[in-house]
């Protein structure tokens, strides 16, 4: 009798321990699964851009896009490349698509200029590291936004972004802006900035400044296309359906929303 009572108590104690330890573990794993499915859940709206590499080869088109963006947002023009601020720029094919080239890729292809900007990723690594939520993914339209008022200049996001899309203000940018557009604020020393997909223009139903500028050029039609990825009838979805497109560094799992027609 004593013996069985003792073993009963032992078993009861052990099961209580098992339940106590098991539940939190179970809950944690369920939550982890939920987190992942949340990330994968498509937003009701996701702004995206398609860049046609062939149509963006002409210096005239490249120059017009970059200048339109940088004028629109008071982006300074600083000679020292380590301190320069850029929202949109070009880089050689070889560097932009390092994982798509190999030692025998044609030299001429390696050297092609490719337009690059913030990818407004579906799972942005910059957002994960920002300690103040100064950069975050807007749920209403999928833009990876910058709140300049909250940025403390820690530059974690610069280190986290695998695309070099962000720039840090090492100095007061105002002296380096040729003509300040009062409608858009400048930035100060100590904040990080990047392309915001022209959130302020989109709010008024316009397309981003770079897209508008190159559409106006005769040779720039279709070079950059902007639209809602969640809308099956949008121009970007149409192009993605019809043409072969690639994204930058797909292996990282950030899921960029800037696509390239090659």
């Amino acid at each position, binding site marked *: 009798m004593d013996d069985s009572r003792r073993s009963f108590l032992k078993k009861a104690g052990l099961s209580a321990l098992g339940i106590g330890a098991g539940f939190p573990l179970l809950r944690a794993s369920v939550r982890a699964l939920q987190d992942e499915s949340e990330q994968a859940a498509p937003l009701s709206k996701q702004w995206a851009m398609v860049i046609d590499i062939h149509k963006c080869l002409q*210096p005239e088109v490249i120059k017009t896009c970059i200048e339109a963006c940088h004028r629109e947002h008071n982006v300074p023009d600083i000679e020292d490349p380590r301190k320069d601020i850029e929202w949109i720029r070009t880089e050689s094919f070889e560097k932009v698509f390092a994982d798509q080239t190999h030692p025998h890729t044609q030299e001429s292809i390696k050297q092609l200029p490719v337009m690059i900007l913030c990818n407004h990723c579906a799972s942005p690594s910059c957002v994960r590291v920002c300690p103040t939520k100064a950069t975050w993914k807007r749920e209403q339209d999928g833009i990876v936004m910058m709140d300049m008022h909250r940025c403390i200049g820690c530059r974690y996001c610069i280190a986290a972004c695998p695309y070099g899309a962000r720039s840090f203000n*090492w100095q007061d940018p105002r002296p380096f802006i040729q003509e300040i557009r009062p409608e858009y604020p400048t930035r100060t020393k100590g904040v990080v900035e990047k392309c915001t997909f022209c959130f302020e223009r989109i709010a008024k139903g316009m397309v981003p400044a770079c897209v508008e500028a190159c559409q106006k050029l005769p040779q720039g039609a279709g070079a950059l296309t902007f639209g809602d990825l969640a809308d099956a009838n949008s121009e970007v979805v149409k192009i993605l359906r019809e043409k072969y497109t690639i994204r930058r560094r797909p292996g990282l799992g950030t899921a960029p929303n800037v696509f390239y027609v090659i």
Partner: protein
Amino acid sequence: MYDSGKIIGGLVLFTVAAAFPVWYTHASGKAGYQPNPVLPEGKTKCVESKEYMLSEHMNLLDEWRDLVVREGQTTYVSTAYGDEYEMSFTKTCLDCHEKKEEFCDKCHTYADVTPYCWDCHVEKTATGRMQHVRVGRQSKPDMLSNAEPSRRGAARLEDKDKAMTARIDSEPSAVIGR
């Protein structure tokens, strides 16, 4: 009582001296000093009632900022008058209150607050545009030709760590927590 004259005289002197800040400001007419910000001509009302603006304008601006930047909204409907305004620091507030020195600064100097908004938000000038002397380069580098693609920012992509180190080395004073 010994030396009562001296004590009373001393007390009177002390009181007068201690009350110096009080009677001096009254005597010099500074007691009634008010910052008197210059209101915009030809405009009759602000976004909200005068009383509300006086006490809450900084909160209103914070609200606008969050609505625009974080919520993606653009228009504000005045609760007092029902008018619609674009929520913008420069395009709305400074459109009516054109002269910062005559308006915002008057009060802020008086109250000893220094909002830093103007470090980034641009004041409108008479021409509506600010001109700056150009310090940067004169012409764009040859980043745009096919033969010689961009070297600008190449460091950033080529070797991120190296670039970061270079940046940090170039401005050690600005490094946080290194």
